[in-house]
């Protein structure tokens, strides 16, 4: 059943997106405790020349994956996006992140009522590091 698009806007996780700490982001996702998982594919460049456009690809091989959230630890607002998958959509996405400075990029997956995580570091090249 289609919810009105305006209802989607009302559902926006303001607490999570306004949160300034990763701990508060995880709390807003109810993901306070999560298990590290090797079944989450997280592709980000090791070094980003341009921190304003950092490509990311995430795919979860965990059965019954319902939600995937992506977090950039050192951003002012670490929660970048979250996606809910249903009706047979592959639990995967591509997007581009703003990564303000060298940071861990974390993925949180909710599958079958449990939470799982994966993380990779993105180094952001900056003027200070040119020598």
């Amino acid at each position, binding site marked *: 059943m*289609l919810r009105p*698009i*305006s209802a*989607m*806007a009302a*559902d*926006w*996780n303001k607490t999570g*997106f306004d949160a300034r700490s990763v701990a508060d982001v995880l709390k807003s996702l109810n993901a306070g405790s999560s298990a590290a998982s090797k079944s989450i594919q997280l592709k980000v460049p090791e070094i980003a020349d341009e921190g*304003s*456009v*950092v490509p990311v690809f995430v795919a979860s091989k965990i059965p019954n994956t319902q939600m995937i959230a992506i977090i*950039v630890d050192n*951003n*002012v*607002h*670490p*929660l*970048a*996006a*979250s*996606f*809910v*998958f*249903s*009706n*047979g*959509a*592959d639990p*995967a*996405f*591509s*997007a*581009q*992140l*703003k990564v303000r400075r060298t940071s861990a990029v974390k993925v949180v997956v909710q599958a079958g009522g449990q939470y799982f995580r994966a993380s990779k570091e993105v180094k952001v090249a900056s003027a200070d590091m040119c020598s």
Partner: protein
Amino acid sequence: MTNPIALKLRQIDDRTEIEIKILHPMEPGDALTQKSGTPRPPSFLQSIVIQLNGRTLVEGQLSASLSKNPIFAFSFSGIKAGDKFAVYCTDNKGGEFKSEIVAQS
């Protein structure tokens, strides 16, 4: 007014991938403009919904920690010719955008 959403479908092995390009500033609102020193107001996409033949497949919540003019991709199996994808987006200023594409094969 041109639609800020451009859609493409491509076949990759047994999957159909939808690529969604959206023209949007994704401005967080905490940056200072160089000229006037007045902060630019926030203007960013907040939600995206992908539907297939009227059924919701993906619901996304977005923020200005995503890049300007974002490009999203999602993938699906079992897509047949004639299947219709609809993509809806909203932004923080109440803007609503929509685009549709029909699978050719």
